């Protein structure tokens, strides 16, 4: 059975097992390796992508679940909120080892697209599923506030 994928605006057909985790398809078949494998059990958030503009853990969804739905990976982020997040991430030098950061940026961008002026609690709740072993959490929160200020300016 073929699954029609729309990844970063490009339509393609996936001919493999429809129960394959979306993350595997993105990395192994499509070749977009910015989305990371972390835990494989939806605990760490490294594999976060957007589906219909909302965050989704791609390790925990069958590829069939996103048939004919727009999927955005870190390589395809281009919204105004995404650009504000990327600038804030650079300005505040958020990244340490960097492995989790594509997932962090995907979650932060989705939050700001829906809630441009989030409180600390909003940020904590939206980002709770994205783990950073370098513990850059304080810089992540500060960068989200900085991106929010950019969006308001």
């Amino acid at each position, binding site marked *: 059975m073929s699954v029609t994928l729309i990844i970063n605006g490009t339509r393609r057909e996936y001919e493999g097992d429809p129960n394959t985790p979306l993350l595997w398809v993105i990395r192994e078949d499509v070749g977009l390796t910015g989305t990371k494998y972390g835990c494989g059990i939806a605990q760490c958030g490294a594999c976060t992508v957007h589906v219909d503009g909302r*965050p989704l853990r791609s*390790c925990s969804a*069958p590829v069939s679940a996103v048939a004919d739905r727009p999927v955005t990976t870190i390589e395809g982020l281009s919204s105004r909120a995404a650009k504000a997040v990327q600038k804030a991430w650079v300005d505040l030098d958020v990244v340490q080892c960097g492995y989790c950061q594509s997932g962090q940026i995907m979650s932060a961008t989705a939050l700001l697209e*829906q*809630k441009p002026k989030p409180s600390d609690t*909003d940020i904590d709740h939206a*980002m709770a599923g994205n783990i950073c072993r370098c513990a850059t959490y304080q810089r992540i929160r500060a960068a989200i506030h900085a991106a929010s200020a950019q969006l308001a300016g």
Partner: protein
Amino acid sequence: MASSVQVRLLSALLAVTSASFAFAQDLRAPEAFSSITNPAERSRALFTEAGRVLQHPRCLNCHPVSDRPLQGNDSHPHSPLVVRGADDKGATGMRCTTCHQAANFEPSGVPGHPLWHVAPATMAWQTKSLGQICAQIKDPSRNGGKNLAAIHEHMAHDSLVGWAWMPGGNRVPAPGTQAQLGALIAAWIESGAACPAS
């Protein structure tokens, strides 16, 4: 060093333990309570039997007393941290559907259902006695405006309730079947819908 016999015995013990772990317990049918002649007593006994489902982790975990659901056979706090949000389906940016899809997904072990959400705060069962849960279930101001017929419909036919008997992974199913729960609730209503004292 363990002998091969000891290893085989240990393996057999582990196999039996894991099989028991996943085995759904039985639920007694309404007929088992027909010898109780006092209708109110019979009604309380029927609800107490149904309570084995209502207070099972598969049901209790998503009827939390706080904004945070529970998970697992030991009902530990949900990990990662999630909160019910304004619509009981998560916070902005961290919705139930961020991780839970339309069906259980065995590769990641994450359970799923199209209607995945936590019960409203007024329907919290965690930490409540069975008598308190019973009173809450009957109270339209706390049960979403349901009458007893609607309560029966929810217990007997709601597909998210039905997930409790096919939870996937190593999650222990609720006792019996959804049809047996429906029969118990129907008999409880028919006998006067009396609540246990505690």
